[in-house]
């Protein structure tokens, strides 16, 4: 991983929530949500590992024949 990639990863995985808010990170996230695909547009396809067995799961396989509900979140 190069220096730029490390910075990218570190800024995404902030260590202090108050510093993140002070730097306007929460406002940038809200803007990112508004800029993301609108209803009616095509969703972006990705492949992610499944917790448990590590199987590579392609999102488009999950929404191929039935609607897919995707919830995003973390422990906190």
């Amino acid at each position, binding site marked *: 991983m190069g220096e730029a*990639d490390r910075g*990218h*990863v570190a800024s*995404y*995985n*902030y*260590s*202090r*929530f*108050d*510093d993140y*808010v*002070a730097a306007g990170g*929460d406002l*940038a*996230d*809200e803007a*990112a*949500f*508004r*800029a*993301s*695909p*609108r*209803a*009616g*547009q*095509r*969703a*972006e*396809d*990705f492949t*992610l*590992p*499944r*917790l*448990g067995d590590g199987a590579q*799961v392609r*999102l*488009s396989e*999950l*929404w*191929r*024949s*039935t*609607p*897919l*509900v*995707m*919830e*995003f*979140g*973390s*422990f*906190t």
Partner: protein
Amino acid sequence: MFVYTREAHPGENVPCHDSFERKLACARLLREDAGIGREILVDDLAGTVHRAYGLMPDMTWVIDRGGRVAYKANWTSAPNVEAFLDRFLAARGQHPAGAAAVMYETQQIEFRHTDRKRFTEHLLRNGSRAVREFEKAQELWARRSAT
């Protein structure tokens, strides 16, 4: 399906992710703690999928079969998602004879009610640092709204 992202309120017990192995361990903790029985997919360390879908900490999207966005909300409300799906699937699947199902788009504001005491207790499980940092963030938000 659930996509595990970065930790929104890192603390002493569940810190920010500095490796994919740590991210996987935190995802396992979430699965056990919250009893999530659904499939959990783990985003990469840079948050590639989270970024593409809008970076909010607790959001829900519904993608219709074939890959079209049907619903997006920057906060998860299970009753809201269920009500949407009931309406969406019923309207798409059945329409009066001679009528066509024509798609239209809505955008609306919703309200949620947060139980501060319960939220603070939840944060505390992640360590007192997570609570302190959220309190400081609240001060920043208050200052922002005053200007």
